[in-house]
């Protein structure tokens, strides 16, 4: 909607200079590009060049290492649990927040933002505080032989916590901008609550969901801080991909470390690509 308006303004202004003089533009653009190259492109290139330094064969071998494979598997499991759970929660929470008013709404919005505002280390420590040996539930868990901390459940919980806001945060403004008109129209036409949700609400937020899911997934697979606190770093059992990279790096196994890191870099690139498509579509779906 905004693009044509901008063109119109430019036309209406005709000969008037509405941009900065050429040298200023050049300097600004160059600074921005150099900055991007230095801090984003260069590290990315470094990761891949280090990973492939000793050839493609070594690269593959490093990835086939059993502990690394286990780390990849754990990361995939973590994402497979955290993303769907946060998807369901995110859609429900943003629907409630955007379309209805109820007591405690502002509290809910604040709570959704909480994981964004605390350091991931703190997020991890919260779980140590709850489930650790000295924690609130520690004695109970020990008595029933349930392992949460330094085991897969702890990693799942920490990941779900830090990725909690991504989908809801994306959907709330989108749904608010769309208003309730279409849903009301559907209800007047006789649609039930579920029919309205699946046939009207969901298609309207489809791209917002994809956008949120892809960001949530990237964070779930890449989270280091919170997971590091609750994982216990048990090789082949509680290491996720980022933790595995750190271990390999600390052992001066640079090629392997960068090979595994390149997996995360690929994830980042794919995420970026899908994100920009989704972003474009979300903007199309926003009301002017």
């Amino acid at each position, binding site marked *: 909607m905004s693009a044509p308006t901008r063109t119109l303004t430019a036309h209406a202004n005709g000969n008037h200079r509405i941009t900065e003089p050429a040298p200023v533009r050049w300097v600004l653009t160059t600074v921005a590009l150099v900055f991007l190259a230095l801090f984003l492109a260069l590290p990315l290139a470094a990761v891949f060049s280090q990973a492939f330094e000793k050839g493609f064969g070594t690269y593959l071998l490093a990835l086939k290492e059993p502990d690394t494979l286990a780390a990849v598997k754990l990361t995939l499991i973590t994402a497979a649990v955290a993303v769907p759970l946060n998807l369901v929660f995110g859609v429900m929470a943003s629907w409630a927040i955007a379309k209805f008013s109820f007591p405690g709404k502002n509290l809910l919005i604040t709570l959704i933002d909480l994981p964004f505002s605390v350091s991931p280390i703190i997020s991890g420590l919260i779980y140590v505080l709850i489930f650790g040996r000295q924690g609130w539930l520690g004695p109970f868990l020990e008595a029933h032989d349930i392992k949460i901390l330094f085991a897969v459940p702890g990693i799942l919980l920490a990941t779900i916590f830090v990725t909690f806001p991504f989908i809801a945060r994306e959907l709330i403004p989108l749904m608010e901008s769309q208003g309730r*008109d*279409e849903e*009301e*129209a*559907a*209800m*007047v*036409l*006789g*649609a*039930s609550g579920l*029919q309205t949700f699946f*046939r*009207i609400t969901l*298609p*309207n937020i489809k791209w917002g969901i994809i956008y949120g899911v892809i960001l949530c997934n990237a964070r779930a697979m890449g989270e280091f801080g919170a997971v590091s606190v609750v994982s216990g770093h048990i090789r082949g059992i509680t290491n996720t991909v980022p933790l595995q990279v750190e271990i390999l790096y600390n052992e001066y196994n640079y090629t392997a470390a960068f090979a595994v890191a390149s997996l995360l870099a690929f994830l980042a690139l794919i995420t970026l690509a899908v994100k920009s498509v989704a972003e474009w579509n979300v903007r199309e*779906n926003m009301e002017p």
Partner: protein
Amino acid sequence: MSIEIESINKQFGSFTALGDVSLSIPSGELVALLGPSGSGKTTLLRIIAGLESPDSGRILFNGEDTTESHVRERKVGFVFQHYALFKHMTVFDNVVFGLTVRPKETRPSKGEIRDKVTELLRLVQLEGMAKRYPAQLSGGQRQRIALARALAVEPQVLLLDEPFGALDAQVRTELRRWLRRLHDEIHVTSVFVTHDQEEALEVADRIVVMNKGRIEQAGTPDQVYEHPANPFVLNFLGNVNLFHGRIQSAGEGQPEADNSVSYVRSHDVEIDRSQHDSSSLKAEVKHIQKLGPSVRITLSINDSESFVEAELTRDVFQNLDLQQGEQVYVRPRQVRVFAEDYQI
């Protein structure tokens, strides 16, 4: 289907959106809810539809209390101010939505649905647009699709919220005449909201004038225009001049001084070069404004602070050949007098 609105009250927080509103709408009528912005028109319409629930009062359809029944069950057609078409669906899918959400037993067959769409698109004069998306339609076309979608479920009551509000003047006039013809064809009880007096006067069987959450007057267009119940209605249906004290109209006797207010519509002000009788007032032409077919003239009454606006047809104006600054006589053709304390 007749609609009975019985002493509806609606508060938003401490704000009274509707205060004790009662109205009965006979079956098959086309009724206009007319009033300024914020007067509660949309709120009343939404309460009739069941999209909003009243704090107290009842809505009866054909004598049956619907207050407790859900929007879904009321079987009304609702056309939203901004159309609220389903953006991700084609025109076809939009129009048939109300049929496809029905449970299997009552859902028409695919063939019946297709016939229905063809028939409705012909009714709203948009044949051949079935495959388009709402974004590919003009404002007026979207409005008509919204109407077709509402009519597809064969509602017993049709509610339209400022159906032509977002359209330009010409499309507006065209569509409202079309709506009138459509109503004469299908005769469904209809209520439409507008803040355009001309629209209400032209289209509606009955006009309900609302102000500040209350009904000021309800009646036929002639009744509310010719016999406004109070200054608000008079003022809302056309430009009026206001005189403190009682003034006399052409041919009346001496004015009596009291604390009432006299109102004269601007097209009821006559301008003359010579004094007719005692009702003529001497005035100076201050300003002349040509507005298409009519001309608006602002005059200041001599020996007083008051200004008068007169509206003449172009013919009359040209015959008089008025000039700015000229001394003339004005004479009210028709005066309406209301008690002083009424607040517009």
